[in-house]
């Protein structure tokens, strides 16, 4: 019996005892138990430690990159990591293993996963004018990680309890098992989106992180004004709009705080950005 199997069995027994569901004489087989139901019943038992958080994010990133792989542009990938790392260093969690990537998707969106994973779509990159705008988008995603928005959403489904002691000391097969278990909740979470309050908070923190990194703090608001011109039914934006409040609403919510960043005159680094993203625009125009 694997450690995972043992843990699941433990959870099942615990849940059954808690719920008083273990009727005498009733057939009781681990194989027939719906893991989701069990774990939801058990509820949130404990805080997730950072190594586990990273491992969960790793597993979720496997599914996200399974939906769309990285864009084959090493120079651009390295560039985005430069900006992302610099912005992340301004946060409360500079020591996480931060990883940034541009995927191959034409859809306009960006994603974060626990432990320091941030993915921006090619479609989003195409909408940006300069580095300050990208820094704003990355700042928003970094905030989801530092504030553990996805992790907390996932904890509500309590699957992370599978990562109990012993299981987190991952061997390859245990990791594969974890990823398999996480795939369903990951897909559900990224299709459903976070709470609106999490998105508004990520906007507030995102502009501040970009400002701390020395960028023009109005990068994220500029991106939101671009997105505000779009038809909410646009196919390329369907997932973004399903999972986020409308851009104009986000701008309105952000407006009072933006006032505190009025006096800042800082670089946007448009030329460096335009140079590094030139290939994307050339490819799109052909």
């Amino acid at each position, binding site marked *: 019996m694997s450690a995972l199997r043992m843990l699941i069995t433990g959870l099942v027994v615990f849940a059954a005892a808690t719920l008083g569901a273990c009727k005498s004489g009733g057939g009781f087989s681990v194989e027939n138990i719906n893991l989701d139901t069990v774990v939801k019943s058990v509820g949130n038992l404990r805080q997730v430690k950072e190594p586990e958080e990273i491992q969960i994010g790793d597993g979720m*990133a*496997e*599914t996200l*990159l*399974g*939906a*769309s792989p990285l864009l084959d542009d090493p120079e651009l*990938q390295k560039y985005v*990591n*430069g*900006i992302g*790392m*610099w912005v992340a*260093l301004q946060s409360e969690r*500079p020591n996480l*293993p931060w*990883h*940034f*990537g541009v995927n191959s*998707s034409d859809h*306009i969106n960006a994603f974060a996963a626990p432990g320091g994973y941030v993915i921006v*779509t*090619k*479609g989003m990159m*195409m*909408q940006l*004018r300069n580095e300050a705008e990208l820094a704003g988008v990355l700042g928003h995603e970094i905030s989801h990680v530092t*504030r553990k928005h996805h992790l907390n959403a996932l904890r509500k489904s309590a699957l992370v309890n599978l990562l109990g002691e012993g299981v987190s000391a991952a061997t390859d097969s245990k990791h594969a098992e974890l*990823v398999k278990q996480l795939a369903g909740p990951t897909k559900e979470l990224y299709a459903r989106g976070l709470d609106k309050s999490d998105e508004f908070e990520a906007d*507030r923190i995102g502009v*501040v992180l970009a400002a701390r*990194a*020395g*960028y*023009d*703090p*109005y990068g994220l*608001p500029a991106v939101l*004004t671009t997105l505000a*011109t*779009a*038809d*909410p039914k*646009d*196919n*390329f934006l369907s*997932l973004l709009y399903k999972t986020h409040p409308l851009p104009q609403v986000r701008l309105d*919510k952000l407006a009072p*705080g*933006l006032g*505190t*960043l009025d006096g*800042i005159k*800082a670089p*946007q*680094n448009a030329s*460096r950005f335009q140079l590094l993203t030139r290939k994307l*625009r050339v490819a*799109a*125009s052909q």
Partner: protein
Amino acid sequence: MSNPKRAILIRLFAVLLFAIPAADAAETGYTLRATEVKDKPFLDAATVVTLPEKTQVEIVTRQGAWMQIKTREVKSGWVRMLSVRLGNPDQKPQTSGNLLSAIGIGNRPRTTSSSTVTTGVRGFSEEDLAKAAPNPAEVEKMKGFAVTPGEAGSFASAGKLAAQEVAYFDDDGKPLKVKK
């Protein structure tokens, strides 16, 4: 350098220039509400004129909270970014894959007039997500592009970025003293 060589270089440079799709052609927008136009990007700068709601503006540049604009009547002035909506007031919402093209900039090739819609839709739709199989190799690849904090610092210096002290703020815009 001989003249023919120089001519070739100049021609090459010109070709390169034109091969790069326009990224900062004029953008247009319109005022969301009655909006003061300032002569400088400051709140206490002199007001040049007040534009009524839905006045069409051409966006010259952005700087922090401000947009430098011009209109038929105003040669140059500054308005608050949040007072301007991109596009024009009578325009239907954009359904193309490229918003920047639709509002006047972005991947619009100089050689043709209209090729704004990206073809070959693929990538991260909800459907793609639903049928995604975990891809551990891509995660390993992603890790390969990681930069160290030291490298990030050098990257920032090269971009003339200096770290600043800026406080978080709450929902009402009040600065938060305690780090969140």
